[in-house]
């Protein structure tokens, strides 16, 4: 029976590359698949592109290319990545440059485009598409002049098309987290575009693997202290059968653990209604899935049920949503928390006296309740060794946000005693709002293009 082996290479922009090298080196993986684009990543890439139009892709494609292209050539491993971000063509140019530097002529590098709809919004509205936000119902005009990016989520089919055209590397822009993982299964195992149950299994696989180490013992809430060697954690490797069932494991000799518990924790991660996991490729019902231990570091996953793909694609747009200013200062025992509270009061009074325009004033006491908020009980103050105060404000412009930062250094001389300055923590940041809408898929898909270039 035919089988295909796919591995996870990166779970976000900035993820380490060593586990992917481990898979390439120590396993017989055939496809290394990346998910580089969190919801926010495109906002970062847009800022890069505004500075330099040749950018707009995740800059670690350079590292990826150097580390993995030699295996593409030598072992025939294929790479599938959405590192193209807002500029797949730019990412390909960089990959080709590295391939040439390494003397890897003949590699075929494909891109898929058509997800970027920022320049098509008028056209879509003229075609009758309602681009209001799904969450709030607000019309697009409310934020139109503040838009940074607008991309529809493409599924696996453009990647499958690239593979059919002989691509060794496929680079896309905004695709679903699962598309990179599902595409090789469709291509290798010959699944039909309406084989909903198998496609749903592929979506479950993609979902389990797209956060890299989160399924192999990372971020594990159980007995994490018994998970071995997280310093050299292995990323997931799946051995997939024609019927869609698969064994989830990892490269031999790596750290981490693959157990029913590590797998089920990731299984439901950030999935809303488990009966209705909507993607452009199918709608999966996760409540039918079976997860069983099949051996040490081997878990068998089967049984997903699928329903037809939806007639619309989700699009996410990012818009400028004001600024945040934030600073920190540390206080030592005794009465560390009381000191931090007093310092927060001083800052607030000074902000108001200075007339700083802020829309929200937010205080955290790190070491006490910054991560758990009202549910965290406040310990007996004599037992608190130190507290770090963080104050943040939300403002319309960066200048107002920056005025907060200047209030921290004087506290060392003018505030409660026993202070550590933390100037490295003072910063302003632009806030990005996210806007979600649905677009009839044919209006997006008619513009999707796949092209393959051979490294000369």
């Amino acid at each position, binding site marked *: 029976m035919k089988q295909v082996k796919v591995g996870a290479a990166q779970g976000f922009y900035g993820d380490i590359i060593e586990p992917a090298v481990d898979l390439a080196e120590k396993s017989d993986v055939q496809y290394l698949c990346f998910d580089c684009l969190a919801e926010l990543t495109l906002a970062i890439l847009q800022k890069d592109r505004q500075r330099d139009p040749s950018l707009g892709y995740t800059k670690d494609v350079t590292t990826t290319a150097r580390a993995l292209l030699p295996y593409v050539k030598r072992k025939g491993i294929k790479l599938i990545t959405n590192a193209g971000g807002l500029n797949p063509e730019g990412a390909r140019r960089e990959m080709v440059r590295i391939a040439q530097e390494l003397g890897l002529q003949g590699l075929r590098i494909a891109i898929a485009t058509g997800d970027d709809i920022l320049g098509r919004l008028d056209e879509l509205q003229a075609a009758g598409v309602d681009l209001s936000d799904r*969450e709030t119902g607000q019309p697009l005009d409310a934020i139109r002049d503040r838009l940074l990016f607008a991309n529809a989520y493409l599924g696996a089919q453009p990647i499958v098309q690239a593979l059919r055209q002989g691509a060794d590397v496929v680079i896309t822009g905004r695709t679903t987290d699962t598309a990179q993982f599902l595409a090789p299964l469709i291509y290798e195992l010959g699944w039909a575009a309406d084989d909903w149950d198998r496609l749903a299994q592929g979506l479950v696989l993609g979902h389990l693997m797209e956060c890299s180490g989160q399924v192999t013992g990372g971020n594990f809430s159980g007995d994490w202290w018994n998970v071995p060697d997280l310093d050299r954690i292995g990323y997931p490797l799946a051995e997939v059968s024609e019927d869609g069932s698969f064994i989830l494991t990892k490269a031999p000799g790596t750290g981490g653990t693959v157990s029913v518990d590590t797998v089920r924790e990731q299984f439901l991660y950030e999935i809303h209604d488990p009966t209705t996991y909507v993607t452009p490729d199918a709608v999966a019902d996760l409540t039918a899935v079976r997860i069983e231990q099949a051996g040490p570091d081997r878990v068998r996953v089967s049984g997903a049920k699928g329903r037809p793909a939806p007639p619309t694609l989700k699009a996410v747009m990012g818009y400028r949503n004001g600024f945040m200013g934030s600073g920190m200062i540390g206080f030592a025992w005794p009465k560390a928390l009381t000191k931090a509270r007093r310092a927060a009061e001083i800052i607030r009074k000074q902000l108001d006296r200075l007339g700083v325009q802020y829309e929200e004033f937010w205080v955290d006491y790190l070491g006490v309740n910054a991560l758990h908020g009202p549910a965290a009980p406040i310990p007996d103050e004599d037992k608190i060794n130190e507290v770090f105060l963080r104050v943040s404000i939300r403002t319309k412009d960066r200048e107002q946000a920056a005025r907060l930062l200047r209030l921290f250094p004087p506290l060392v001389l003018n505030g409660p005693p026993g202070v550590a300055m933390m100037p490295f923590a003072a910063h302003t940041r632009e806030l990005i709002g996210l806007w979600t809408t649905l677009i009839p898929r044919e209006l997006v898909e008619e513009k999707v293009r796949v092209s393959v270039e051979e490294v000369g």
Partner: protein
Amino acid sequence: MAKVQLKDVVLARSGDKGDTCDISVFAPNEAVYEHLKRVLTPDVVKAHFGAWVEGPVERFEVPNVLALKFLCHGALGGGASSSLRLDNLGKCFGSNLMRLEIDMPDQLLNQLRAGGEHR
């Protein structure tokens, strides 16, 4: 009946989507799962988080992996990229929920202890 903290009984992982925090809680066996379905209601979860969850809490049952999933709306101060919170991605809501104390029949607790599932 004994009082136990969820941390001694369940696994939990949380994450975000927009301004919604998404928490999954996993039971060690079916008997505990059935018990959790009774005691871990959306109201109990909302009350636990207090002012940090401004909107409603929805619950989904996922019996094949002995899980309850909670969607906490309006829980992240405007959502990851618009939030002033330190945990703007909601990654600590899972461990936060593990603080919750629930009533547990002695028999279930003894089973967990005997099976080594009680941490």
